[in-house]
């Protein structure tokens, strides 16, 4: 299905947010996730199902003032 990941449409088979993070190779990374504008804690990723058109944000530490 098509998911909007960090603003880009992508075709992904992952069914949960946990699977998606793993598929993207970020399972071991320091990242935080949001689904359709709402924060999803890491512990909740396994039980967060993804559906067609979902917007996923995967954020990491970056420079800031």
């Amino acid at each position, binding site marked *: 299905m098509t998911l909007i990941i*960090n*603003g880009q449409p992508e075709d992904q088979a992952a069914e949960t947010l946990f699977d998606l993070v793993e598929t*993207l*190779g*970020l399972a071991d*990374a*320091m*990242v*935080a*996730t*949001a689904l359709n*504008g*709402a*924060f999803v*804690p*890491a512990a909740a990723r396994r039980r967060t199902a993804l559906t067609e058109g979902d917007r996923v*944000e*995967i*954020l*990491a*530490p*970056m*420079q*800031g*003032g």
Partner: protein
Amino acid sequence: MQLYDKTFESRLLLGTALYPSPAIMAEAARASRAEILTVSLRRESAAQRTGQDFWALIRETGATVLPNTAGCHSVKEAVTTAQMAREVFNTSWIKLEVIGEADTLQPDVFGLVEAARILSEDGFAVFPYTTDDLVVAERLVEAGCRVLMPWGAPIGSGRGLNNPYALRTMRAHFPDVPLIVDAGIGLPSHAAAAMELGYDAVLLNTAVAKAGDPVRMAQAFAKAIEAGRAAYEADPMEMRDMAAPSTPVLGKAFLA
């Protein structure tokens, strides 16, 4: 200096953006002797993993991390960003920015107070980037903020203290709240001026990062902030309208 649950020697808070390179950023941070560094959360690319490298660098400095909600224009965005930052950085500290206007990057003070209340109630230690409006400041304290960060001038403008009179008033109005001038600082003399007003600390980023020699400038800021604080504690002389000779008049020869 005490900010929420932590104590610090340094009164310089430094931002980590806009440096020529990550290595220079780390060196400037070290040269500044800042014990608090601000950071943000941005999209991570699985291929590049830039965030992971950046985080390793920040951890090496040993500094206390203050994540920001830069770029957030709504309460919802700011609150969500803060929640994500709390998880990623494992800290309840948050520099709260709710931006109201793209040219001035000035705070949306209404959203700022609302977000401050929501986050304070959720256990965050909120560092609000605010204006020099006293009423807004009162609302922020009522909302749970135990630190205030009024602007000197628009973010990144390097203009210094646009309204020192308002800053002086705010200092007098909140004697027991740690006050940090945040935004618009351009020169060490600006930072010294803020410290001479009795401000507890200064937060700056562009002034160091965009200097020709960021490491040298970071050192200069560290010295200026120490000088300004020492001056404040040394109880400066009063200003006068008219001249008053320093050399004694008594005993001067008549040589006319």
